[in-house]
């Protein structure tokens, strides 16, 4: 509920006798309006002045004396932080945090521009690592979601620059992201931040796999470690959000393999050695299952069906069939659980995954055998009937759920 709604509809509620005037005042007090005394016009005006100053500086950057350049950078840095703190204290939190975030960005820009100024490129990674560390410090200090988001992005950029430009992977940056931000998320669980953190960690894991030139499927070991961390998190929505990106990555990977796997030209880069890979995967699985059991969510262990190593089958048809079996096992289990839990969002997700898998399966397995028009006709009919059947099931499940909740409500004692 927002204050705006309360302000608009509140008098009407009082008139209808839903709440008393006193209660309306109490409700309003629960949602304090931000004390943004600052008007829009002065803000826009100062923004324009700032932009003009920026363009003057940018146009003459090369011809400014070195010390002046350095001074300008540092002054901007300090001013952004000081301004952020000033507005926060006046209760204007959004603007304040925006300025602090700007300060963090200026810090990174300062490092880069100063290094260029003195022709320092070097092979050491400390310069940009300091940027990520500063972001983590600020995140912990301000407990801000905005800064958390920004720090995940910065760490990803730093790691991308390291591997791309300097040809080295910074394990410190990766460990810092995992520990510094992971611990923050662990203490203050949050769904959005969980998804973002998982995405950032997967990005760095992918860069590491690429940097080490090891087989691609090793990626799923760190990815599923992230997943397992979500199992241990007490806050269910936050844990689920952290598990979203690893599952999405696994699903897309398997789907891609089912679609394009038969060419096998990358076979040399794909398959990790069977025994070490399975051993590592089983270890992560055990970690995950213990976490699920501790938190009483063993039913979600079906997620792991997606990690069945069907990709060890080689060649065209066996690989396609194996990956499709994996996809069907997973999307079928999602559907089944959704119907058991009577969860409408899950039903939708499961339906989409199932239909997608069926489309791929049909495309892969029948393309060669059919005349093209027959192929499309039968495929369309198959998908239509499948979606009709799934929707009917979903409608029935949800109707049953509604009936159950309605009867529960009527059975409840009246106050």
């Amino acid at each position, binding site marked *: 509920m927002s204050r705006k709604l309360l302000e608009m509809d509140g008098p009407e509620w009082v008139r209808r006798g839903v709440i008393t005037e006193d209660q309306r005042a109490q409700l309003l007090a629960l949602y304090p309006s931000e004390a943004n005394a600052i008007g829009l016009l002065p803000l826009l005006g100062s923004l324009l002045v700032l932009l003009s100053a920026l363009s003057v500086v940018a146009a003459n950057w090369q011809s400014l004396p070195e010390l002046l350049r350095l001074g300008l950078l540092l002054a901007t840095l300090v001013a952004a932080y000081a301004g952020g703190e000033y507005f926060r204290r006046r209760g204007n939190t959004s603007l304040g945090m925006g300025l602090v975030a700007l300060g963090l960005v200026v810090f990174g820009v300062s490092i880069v521009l100063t290094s*260029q100024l*003195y022709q320092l490129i070097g092979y050491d990674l400390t310069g940009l690592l300091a940027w990520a560390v500063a972001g983590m410090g600020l995140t912990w200090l301000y407990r801000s979601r905005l800064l958390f988001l920004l720090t995940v992005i910065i760490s990803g950029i730093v790691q991308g620059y390291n591997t791309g430009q300097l040809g080295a992977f910074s394990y410190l940056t990766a460990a810092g992201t995992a520990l510094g931000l992971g611990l923050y998320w662990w203490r203050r669980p949050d769904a959005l931040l969980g998804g973002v953190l998982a995405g950032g960690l997967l990005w760095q894991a992918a860069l590491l796999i690429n940097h080490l030139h090891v087989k691609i499927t090793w990626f799923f070991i760190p990815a599923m470690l992230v997943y397992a961390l979500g199992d241990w998190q007490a806050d269910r929505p936050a844990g689920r959000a952290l598990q979203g990106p690893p599952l999405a990555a696994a699903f897309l990977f398997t789907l891609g393999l089912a679609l394009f796997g038969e060419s096998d030209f990358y076979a040399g880069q794909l398959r990790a050695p069977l025994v070490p890979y399975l051993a590592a995967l089983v270890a992560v699985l055990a970690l995950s299952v213990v976490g699920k059991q501790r938190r009483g969510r063993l039913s979600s262990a079906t997620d792991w069906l997606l990690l069945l190593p069907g990709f060890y089958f080689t060649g065209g048809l066996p690989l396609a069939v194996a990956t499709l079996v994996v996809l069907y096992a997973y999307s079928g289990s999602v559907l089944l659980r959704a119907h058991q839990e009577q969860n409408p969002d899950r039903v939708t997700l499961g339906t989409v995954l199932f239909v997608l898998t069926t489309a791929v399966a049909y495309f892969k397995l029948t393309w060669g055998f059919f005349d093209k028009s027959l192929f499309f006709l039968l495929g369309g009919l198959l998908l239509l009937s499948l979606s009709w059947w799934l929707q009917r099931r979903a409608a029935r499940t949800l109707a049953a759920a509604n009936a159950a909740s309605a009867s529960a409500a009527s059975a409840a004692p009246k106050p």
Partner: protein
Amino acid sequence: MTEPLLSPLNPVPAAALALPAHHRRWLLWLVAAQVLFVLGVAVAGYATAALGRSITLQTEPVDPRDLLYGDHLRLRYQISELPGSLWRGSTLPRRKDAAYVLLEPQAAGVDYAAVGIYPEAPATTGQQVVLRGSVQDVWRRGLRLRYGLERYYVPETMNRQMRQRRRLRVQISIAPWGQARITQVDTLGAVR
């Protein structure tokens, strides 16, 4: 993302809104550390030029079209690719190993050339200097090395002077603590 990160439903606890005193102190430290870090980068660059030993190296011809793509030139030095016979380690070099290249001025000119590649920093005599790099590539007869000096951020004054592929003479300053930076770049004759 359109959703505000701090919605009214998800307010910051009142205690966090005004940071307590020790938080303010931490913030002060954090900002001071950032300022000092940037200053440190500047001082390191300045000190490397002021206290370091200056040498000159020749590059392979540089393509002026590089300038079209950005603000820096990509430099390839004559010592960027060296014959394997210069390797002085007991085991064969591998990718990403550190490599210390011993440089000596050629008898005729002022430009320095490599006389040996070592896995550990070697002792120097007289005019010799050591430049630290890392092995990028190894093949049967040679090595490709990287020194962290492969980019030159071109100042406005030099911009667009070059019309043809040219060799460059690059002046490099090597600090006693091993850090190196480019201090000056001059163009040599054009190469056809």
